[in-house]
């Protein structure tokens, strides 16, 4: 990385400043973002003045054992914020206690799910919160080394992290014998190089091993056999950033927020047709209307909501009706047939053409399929081609059936869930908005071989 030039040329991104006034919005419940507006909170002294690294001191000076740390995180009910929602404390407890192999903690900062830009706020603005969480997590699982796998495009974030880690070393929070505990720990920023699949935990591990980011079959799970075939925990940035608060205030305090099964708060990154797109932190279980109206200022230009994608582009779509009375927690969204995922919410207004939207996503997933499993490599391509024929007035009467067949042959038939990430949206768009697709079919009276199928691919001009 051209570190020096980056420092000079990159202005800090100011995405929240444009979206949010200084005073917190009533509907928000800021735990992670409580001090996000404090100037220079990315510096260690400012972060420490707001209670930063107190959790770390509590662990080491209070002589908490790794098991006590894990129990506290278990008690909080914290679930992985990257997409799968797996309980974090349980994940940590799966790491074997034996020390015959080194253990690793990896922070998944690959944030590349379309619609998701929440981790970037933590990485660029409050990096120490995640770093503190990583040191505590590493102590809990007995890791002497941790890596922050940050997507290659986040150059500014990588520079901020490098600087923050340097500060943490100087303060004695990293390195040898941290706070006199006898625990040694080193932390490394590792930049990806542009591949969506590296956000999948086993793809991330392959990538960190210096290979193409091909996911691996599970089991064995990374907790047993991960990076370099050693026990490894991969946690999302937001998950790790919640750890200091939980340790400082106790797991029980965290359970006061959220619902019974979805504890705590969640950061939502909202984009699309709203007045104030941005990152907002709400209690899990908050109503969707609070996020849409109170935080985001409602629909852009006063238009009507047509549909909403709740958890990143791989989440099945929800109709306006389903959205408006939906609560934002893992269970409520799952009950509507979608998923909370990464919390990357995309709002679509009444003017949006969902066939075009789906085609855009199909292009993304086809481009990003790693090519390892045939159903995904070929299926994503076919979905893209079929949807392309829709927009080229070349659709066929039985194309909806064809799309269903193709996606049925993708679902659950691959090593990782990238295939499902487009197959599920395709099925949900067709199921919930059939008229959009049918109107395209009605407009096309083409027969015979499809000319459109290859017309969008680069070829001889």
């Amino acid at each position, binding site marked *: 990385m051209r570190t020096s030039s980056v420092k000079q040329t990159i202005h800090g991104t100011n995405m929240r400043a444009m979206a949010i006034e200084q005073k917190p919005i009533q509907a928000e419940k800021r735990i992670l973002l409580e001090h996000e507006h404090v100037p220079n909170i990315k510096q260690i002294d400012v972060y420490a003045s707001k209670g930063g690294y107190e959790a770390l001191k509590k662990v080491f000076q209070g002589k908490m054992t790794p098991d006590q740390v894990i129990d506290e995180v278990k008690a909080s009910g914290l679930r992985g914020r990257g997409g799968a929602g797996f309980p974090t404390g349980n994940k940590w407890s799966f790491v074997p206690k034996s020390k015959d192999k080194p253990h690793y903690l990896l922070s998944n900062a690959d944030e590349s799910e379309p619609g998701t830009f929440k981790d970037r706020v933590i990485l660029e603005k409050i990096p120490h919160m995640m770093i503190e969480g990583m040191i505590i997590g590493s102590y809990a699982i007995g890791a002497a080394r941790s890596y922050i796998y940050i997507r290659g495009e986040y150059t500014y974030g990588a520079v901020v992290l490098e600087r923050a880690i340097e500060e943490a070393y100087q303060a004695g929070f990293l390195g040898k014998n941290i706070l006199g505990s006898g625990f040694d720990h080193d932390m490394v920023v590792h930049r990806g*190089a542009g591949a969506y699949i590296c956000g999948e935990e086993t793809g991330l591990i392959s990538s960190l091993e210096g290979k193409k980011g091909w996911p691996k079959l599970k089991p064995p799970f990374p907790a047993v056999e991960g990076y370099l075939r050693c026990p490894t925990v991969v946690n999302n940035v937001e998950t790790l950033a919640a750890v200091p608060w939980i340790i400082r205030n106790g797991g029980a305090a965290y359970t006061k927020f959220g619902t019974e099964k979805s504890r705590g708060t969640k950061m939502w990154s909202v984009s699309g047709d709203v007045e104030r797109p941005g990152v907002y932190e709400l209690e899990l279980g908050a109503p969707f209307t609070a996020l849409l109206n109170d935080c985001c200022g409602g629909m852009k230009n006063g238009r009507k909501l047509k549909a909403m994608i709740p958890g990143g582009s791989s989440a099945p779509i929800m109709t306006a009706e389903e959205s408006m009375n939906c609560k934002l927690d893992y269970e409520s969204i799952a009950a509507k047939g979608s998923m909370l995922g990464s919390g990357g919410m995309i709002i679509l207004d009444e003017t949006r053409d969902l066939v075009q939207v789906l085609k855009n996503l199909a292009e993304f997933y086809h481009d990003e399929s790693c090519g390892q499993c045939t159903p995904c490599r070929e299926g994503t391509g076919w979905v893209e081609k079929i949807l392309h024929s829709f927009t080229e007035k070349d659709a066929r009467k039985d194309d909806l059936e064809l799309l269903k067949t193709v996606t049925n042959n993708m679902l659950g038939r691959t090593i990782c869930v990238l295939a499902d990430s487009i197959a599920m949206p395709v099925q949900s768009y067709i199921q919930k908005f059939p008229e959009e697709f049918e109107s395209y079919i009605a407009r096309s009276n083409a027969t015979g071989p499809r000319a459109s199928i290859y017309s969008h691919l680069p070829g001889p001009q």
Partner: protein
Amino acid sequence: MNANPEQASQKISHLSSVQFSDAAMKEFQKILTRYDSKRSALLPVLHLAQDEFGWMSPAVIDYVAKLMDLNSAQVLEVVTFYHMFHKKPVGEHHFQFCVTLSCWMQGSHQMMKSTCSRLGIRQGETTADGKFTVSAVECLGSCGSAPVVQVNETYYENLTPEKLNRLIVSSKEGAPKIP
């Protein structure tokens, strides 16, 4: 492939000139200390090589392979897997437009098209003077401040046709800037 002797000799001369500077070599040694396996350092070393040499020519791939105790095919498969490694030379100002959903909804496609036609190139191409390359890239994680264009390593967010114009003009004059 290299039937043309002139091309072949050019390739050889390029190969012999591929060597890290002293500073890059020092950085390379530092990178190796951060990993428990040498191969894990491949991505950071490739980033370093791209900063040093501009793109991943066959000679650069051979050089990195030698440094990393790998064979060239192992390095090549990694280089071609990741979008950020350039498989051919790119211009001085590399305009990378995000074309995924949230940016696309804000018109990033049109902005990319207008940039291409203004520069007289197609997507993925470089201008004859080597100043500009225009590429379409996937989601850059800037959906709330869409549309975004990444010029080399810098994000320019909440792009408008007017801002884009200033960005292109200032790039032509030397360094990209939105006043």
